[in-house]
């Protein structure tokens, strides 16, 4: 019973089920077309496709953390953050995820991991330093609701197709530019070139995945906001956190120009690019709508709302 009240809801489950099935279907069609057209042989094709899927599935959390420049921290490195997450997990009946910190001033957070047991929650230094503890709690509640809802799995799967299609689109473009796949298709001069078929299929797959991702992501965010409100019992703190995070003022860094300049010399990804990862707001519904819904929940809970 307890678990149900934190973010699990029928509407979300249904949408996720439909999205996953449609993505799965899309994936199969995509693989079959590749198999038919490219003639790589069934066994290698299946091995490749499943191999990539598993690689993605098992490394998604690590890849996401790596891409965001997040470092996993142990309890002795960030005792207060760990304690806060432990408390929230106990209330939500979730296993404790890995905790990571991203070293940027811009307040933000994200959750990743294929299931609650292998999840990780990352917050930026700016979030921890610039927000009040209750506000951080509201944001963490939002991220943990994503974990509880297994949103990460859906998004990982969804973005995998988009990624694969993107890679193949580029591959198809290059192949087109540099004259097809050697002699494989030259035995039939009248047929449509193979690279063109791959290109068209990839483009279509890419756009369909993007549409599916967008279709579900808005709803997931509202559900996670509600999950956070129920978990912390104080939606007003998440509201003020969202307002602070989206305010212009918090985009001004605390860092020194000279420090950043020296760091950029050693990193492949410039620090300024990393700080652009506005995860809390990418593919998120407009702030006003989120605040409106949270205010509604707050009123239902009898909480004070400004």
């Amino acid at each position: 019973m307890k678990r149900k009240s934190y973010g699990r809801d029928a509407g979300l489950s249904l949408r996720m089920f439909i999205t996953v099935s449609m993505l799965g279907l899309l994936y199969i069609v995509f693989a079959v077309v590749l198999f038919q057209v490219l003639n790589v042989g069934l066994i290698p094709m299946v091995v490749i496709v499943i191999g990539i899927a598993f690689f993605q599935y098992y490394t998604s959390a690590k890849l996401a953390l790596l891409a965001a420049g997040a470092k996993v921290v142990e309890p002795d490195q960030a005792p207060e953050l760990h304690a806060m997450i432990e408390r929230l997990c106990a209330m939500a009946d979730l296993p404790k995820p890995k905790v990571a910190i991203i070293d940027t001033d811009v307040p933000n957070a994200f959750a990743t991991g294929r299931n609650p047991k292998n999840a990780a929650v990352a917050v930026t230094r700016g979030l921890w330093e610039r927000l009040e503890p209750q506000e951080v709690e509201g944001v963490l509640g939002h991220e943990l609701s994503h974990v509880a809802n297994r949103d990460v799995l859906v998004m990982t799967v969804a973005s995998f197709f988009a990624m694969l299609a993107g890679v193949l689109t580029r591959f198809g473009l290059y192949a087109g530019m540099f004259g097809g796949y050697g002699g494989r298709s030259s035995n039939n001069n009248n047929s449509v070139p193979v690279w063109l078929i791959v290109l068209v299929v990839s483009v279509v797959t890419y756009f369909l995945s993007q549409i599916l991702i967008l279709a579900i992501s808005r709803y997931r965010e509202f559900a996670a906001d509600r999950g956070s409100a129920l978990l912390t019992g104080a939606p007003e703190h998440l509201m003020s956190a969202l307002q602070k995070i989206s305010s212009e003022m918090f985009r001004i860094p605390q860092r020194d120009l000279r420090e950043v300049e020296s760091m950029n010399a050693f990193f492949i990804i410039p620090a300024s690019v990393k700080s652009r990862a506005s995860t809390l707001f990418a593919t998120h519904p407009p702030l006003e709508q989120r605040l409106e819904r949270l205010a509604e929940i707050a009123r239902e809970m009898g909480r004070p709302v400004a």
Partner: protein
Amino acid sequence: MTLEAELGLKSAGSGGIVFKPLSAGEFVRAENDLQEVLDAVAGESGSRLERKSDEFGYEWIVVRDTDLEDQVATIHAVAQGLQERGFGEQLLAAAFKFEPKFGDGEAIYWIYGFKRGAFWPFVPKGDKERDNAEELELKAKLEKELPIEEDLSRWLALFNAPL
């Protein structure tokens, strides 16, 4: 109308250019070039020029001149001289220091980033914090006067500038 009146700020009488330390391999040549630039500029302007380094290991050319127009002209001349001798990549920023809004408050800085060719305000509060509200106010006030860096995440600080 003077620059000070236009900005609504009173110059603290100093500004400067911060640049990356010169590489060891070319140190002697670079050092000579740098000295030539400084001598040439010093000969033409009434500003006082000083060389300093900071805790980050960066080098500064500090320009002292109570007249803001002259200060800006001298800093521009130094920057140009350095760019002509191939130090363009080395240049990080120019900083102009202004009197605090209230008597004993914190100084106000306008920073010019060479890479993006835009200005941003910097109002430190102690060694690590900054007064973001005041900075946004300065931006709003001077938006029409200066090319301002629109991406706020690039408004990096220059704490303890030796100006």
